[in-house]
C-alpha cells in the first residue's frame, strides 16, 4: 500500500453557508468511499478481532458459526514456542531490512544530488523500472539467480574468490536463507524510499547548506545538522512504511521457498496463513493476525506522535 507523505492539515476549510442541498452535497460525495473502505477494510478488521475470540475450524466454517472461547486462542499462541521464534525472527528481519533500506536509499539519494543530469536520469529510470516490476516477478528472478546449481550469484561469488559457492544451497542454513530474503526485500524497497528521500532533499534550501559551509561545517556535519533535521518527517514515514511492509511480509519468503516454506522460514503473515488456510484453524490464525496488527499499531502510534511533534516544532 502506498501512503501520502504529509500529515493531514487539520484546519477546517472555509465553510460557506448555503441551502441544505449544498450542505449535504459533500456527504453525498464521500458516501461511496466510506461505504467501500468501511465495508471492505474496517468491517473485516473488527471481524478479525471477533474471530480471534472463537474456535473456528472446518466444522465452524461449514456452519458459518464459531464457538466462543474468549481468550483461549491468545493463551495458546502466547505459550507456543514456534510463535515466539517467529516473532523474534520477524523483528530481527524487520530491523535489518529497515536499517539497510533507509541507509542505502539515503546514500543513493545523496549521490543523485551530486551526479550529472544524464546519470541521474539513468539511475532514476532504473529505480522506476524496479519499482514497477511485480513483486512475484522479482521473487522468481532472485530465485533463479540464487539457484544452487546454475545460479549466477554462486558463479560470481566463486569467481570473485569470496569462497567456493559451487552447488551452494542458500536455503539449507536458515540464517543464510534469511540473508537472501533481506537482499530481496531491501532491493525491492530501495526505489520507493530513494525517490521519496530524493524529493525531500530537493526541498532543502541551498542557502542553508551554503551558510553552514561558510561557517566551516564539513560534509557530514552539513548532513547531520542541516539536511537530516529537515528530512525528519520523510525519514519517519519511510521508516514507518518499511516497518509495516517488512514485518507483514508474505510474498517473498512464500514464493522463494516454492510455496512450501518450512517453519524455519515462517514470517508472522505466513504463520497466520498456515494456521488458517493450511490446517483450518481460522480462530488461531486470526489471533496471530491480531497480534501482528497490534505490533504495527504501536509502531504507527510512535510514528504519528513523532510526526505531530515535528509539526509542532515547525
Amino acid at each position, binding site marked *: 500500500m502506498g501512503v501520502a507523505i504529509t500529515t493531514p492539515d487539520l484546519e477546517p476549510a472555509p465553510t460557506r453557508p448555503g441551502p441544505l442541498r449544498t450542505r449535504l452535497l459533500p456527504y453525498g*460525495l464521500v458516501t461511496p468511499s466510506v461505504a467501500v473502505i468501511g465495508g471492505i477494510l474496517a468491517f473485516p478488521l473488527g471481524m478479525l478481532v471477533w474471530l480471534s475470540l472463537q474456535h473456528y475450524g472446518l466444522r465452524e466454517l461449514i456452519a458459518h458459526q464459531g464457538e466462543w472461547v474468549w481468550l483461549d486462542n491468545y493463551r495458546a499462541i502466547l505459550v507456543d514456542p514456534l510463535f515466539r521464534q517467529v516473532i523474534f525472527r520477524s523483528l530481527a528481519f524487520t530491523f535489518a531490512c529497515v536499517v539497510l533500506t533507509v541507509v542505502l536509499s539515503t546514500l543513493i539519494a545523496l549521490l543523485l544530488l551530486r551526479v550529472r543530469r544524464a*546519470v541521474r536520469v539513468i539511475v532514476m529510470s532504473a529505480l522506476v523500472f524496479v519499482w514497477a516490476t511485480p513483486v*512475484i516477478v522479482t521473487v*522468481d528472478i532472485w530465485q533463479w539467480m540464487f539457484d544452487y546449481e546454475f545460479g549466477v550469484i554462486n558463479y560470481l561469488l566463486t569467481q570473485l574468490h569470496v569462497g567456493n559457492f559451487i552447488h551452494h544451497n542458500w536455503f539449507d542454513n536458515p540464517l543464510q536463507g534469511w540473508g537472501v530474503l533481506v537482499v530481496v526485500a531491501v532491493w525491492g524497497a530501495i526505489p520507493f524510499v530513494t525517490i521519496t528521500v530524493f524529493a525531500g532533499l530537493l526541498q532543502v534550501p541551498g542557502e542553508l547548506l551554503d551558510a553552514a559551509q561558510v561557517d566551516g561545517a564539513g560534509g557530514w556535519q552539513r548532513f547531520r545538522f542541516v539536511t537530516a533535521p529537515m528530512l525528519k518527517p520523510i525519514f519517519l514515514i519511510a521508516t514507518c512504511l518499511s516497518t509495516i511492509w517488512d514485518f507483514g511480509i508474505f510474498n517473498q519468503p512464500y514464493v522463494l521457498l516454492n510455496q512450501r516454506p518450512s517453519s524455519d522460514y515462517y514470517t508472522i503473515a505466513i504463520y497466520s*496463513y498456515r494456521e488458517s488456510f493450511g490446517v483450518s484453524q481460522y480462530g488461531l490464525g486470526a489471533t496471530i493476525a491480531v497480534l501482528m496488527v497490534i505490533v504495527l499499531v504501536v509502531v504507527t502510534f510512535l510514528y504519528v506522535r513523532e510526526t505531530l511533534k515535528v509539526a509542532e516544532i515547525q
Partner: protein
Amino acid sequence: MTGIAVAVVMLFPIYWMVITAFKPGRDILTLEPKWFPAPFTLDNFKDAIARPYFLEDVRNSLVIVGVMLVLALLISFLAAVATARFGFRGRNAFLVMIIGVQMVPLNALIIPLYLMLDGVGQTDALPGVIAVYLAVVLPFMIWTLRGFVANIPAELEESAMIDGCTRVGAFFRITFPLVGPGLVATAIFGFIQAWNEYIIAYVLLSSPGNQTLTVWLASFTTNHGPEWGPLMAAATLTGLPVVAFFLLLQRYLAGGLTAGAVKG
C-alpha cells in the same frame, strides 16, 4: 561512476530475467553463465504462452484492473472534491480514517475477507477481488487527488460561474480538465498495485481459470523444480504491461505523485 554502478546493480536482476528468457535451454543451464543471449530464441515465450490458462489469466487480470480502476477513479474523485472544496462536519475524521487504514497490513485481513466473501458466495469470483482491490487503492488515491484538486484555485470556478456557468458546469469545464494529470498519476498507482497483487488473488481465486497472472506465474514451478527459461519468459510477460504503462505515462508523473501528496 558510482551512480552507474548503482543503476547496474539495481537493474541486473531484470536484465538477467530478460536475457534468460531469450536463451535456448542449453545456454540457460550452464555452469559458466552466458552474459548475452547469443543464439537468440523465442521458444521460451512460445512455451509460456502455450501453457494452460495463460490467456484466461491475462483476461482476468485485465478485467480486474480495468473495472477496479474505473470505479476507483470515480469514487476517489468524488471524495477528493468533497474534502478539497467543502468544509463539513466529519471532514477531518474522514481524512484521519484515510491515513489510518493505510497502516493496516492487508495480509492481516485475509481471513475475515475470505470468510466474509465466502458468506456471500464471492470467493473464486472476480467481483470479490475487484472489491478488495478497490478498498486497498482508494485511500491513497483519494489523498493524492485531493492534493491536485486543492491546488486548482476555486476562484477559477467562481469566475466561470459569474460568466454564466452553473456550478456543475463550471466544475466539469474548469476543474475536471485541470485535474487530468492527477487522475493519470493516481491511475498509474492503482494499476501497479492491482496488477502486482498476489496474496488476495491467491487465497480468493481457487480454480486455475479464474486466477490472475501473478498467481499463474507463482504456480509455474513443477515438482521437478522450475523450468527457468519459460518461467523467465512468463515473468517478462507479466512485468511488461506495468513497465510499459508506467513509461508511457511517465511524463504525467513528473512531480505528479509527490506534488499531489506533498502540497496537501
